[in-house]
């Protein structure tokens, strides 16, 4: 967790916003550097940070908004095609596991 994300969480919680932190917990067929990449999503749909952009990030944001409503954290598995992976700068396709942590 990066300090600036931590600061942001504290600030958003002061404003009484429900939020989710999404982070990559496992990435097969890609550089391990990507593990730990994180972003915040508030109940209002505002985001901070990025886990790579593109369609997958949109999927994660939508899922996070659902989970914020339910108040439940969940693991999400995404499969990237070679093309999708290339778009976010990964060498090849593969599966990434993202954990969506609800901070309510």
């Amino acid at each position, binding site marked *: *967790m*990066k300090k600036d994300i*931590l600061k942001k969480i*504290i600030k958003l919680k002061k404003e009484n916003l429900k939020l989710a932190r999404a*982070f990559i*917990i496992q990435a097969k067929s890609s550089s391990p550097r990507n593990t*730990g990449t994180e972003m915040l999503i508030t109940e209002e749909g505002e985001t901070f940070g990025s886990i790579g952009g593109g369609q997958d990030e949109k999927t994660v944001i939508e899922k996070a908004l659902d989970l914020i409503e339910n108040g439940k954290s969940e693991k999400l598995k995404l499969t990237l095609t070679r093309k999708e992976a290339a778009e976010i700068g990964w060498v090849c396709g593969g599966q990434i596991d993202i954990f969506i*942590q609800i*901070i309510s």
Partner: protein
Amino acid sequence: MAEVEDFFKKVFDELEGNKKILTAVLTNIDSEEISQNLLGEMFLFDEDGIIDFSSEQLENELEQFLLNQDFKKEILELRENKNLDSQLKSIHLDQDNRLEIFLEPVVDQPHLTVFGAGHIAEPLVKICSLLDFTITVVDDREEFLNYDKFPTADQLLLLDYEDYFADAKIKENDYLVIVTRGHQHDYQVLKNVINSEAAYLGMIGSSRKIETVYNQLRDDGIKESKLEAVHAPIGLDIGSETPAEIAVAIAAEIIAVRRDK
């Protein structure tokens, strides 16, 4: 809920003390005795053990296992993993209970401060923004300091160098590059930072200029060991000639320091 907020504040406070701390998020629960609703809860620990839990329920439910030697040992092994990146770990609470946790060091992103917004600073800021640094450029010349020149900088400070140091606090994840327009300014900046905890301190210049600045600092009573720690001439020796090439050499040196090479 105040509980979670307090937990994150606690993490923040521990970080301020410059300690190495780790958080663990429960990402999977394979257990009859640990409630599924604890998924996503966290605990915080350092080398002495667990400091805090994100909820009382988590603390209560883990309590019985904390007495278990194997679990204690696993936690200790986790923190012994020096310089670790984030990683997913499976831990055995006992024979029937397993947790998957995502282990993360809490890190303060490295920060690069470039003194002097001249022709070296421009490519250097571009390169270092690719290396996950947050970046500040300081100069007292307005015409050099703008976001057209430094589109990836986080902060541009138009200040006299002395004024900058009036309230700047340099920490151990700070990387400082001194590339001002003249040796008098370089001297002024170096004098202010030479006793700091900065991870990296580099100054540009010919051997002659460096010696002039060092002599001034010796006159000020700066210790020889401090002067030796300054990276000057700055940058790895790769035969750089152009500003961009020099910037690459500086960036490479910064990477080497950051990665303990």
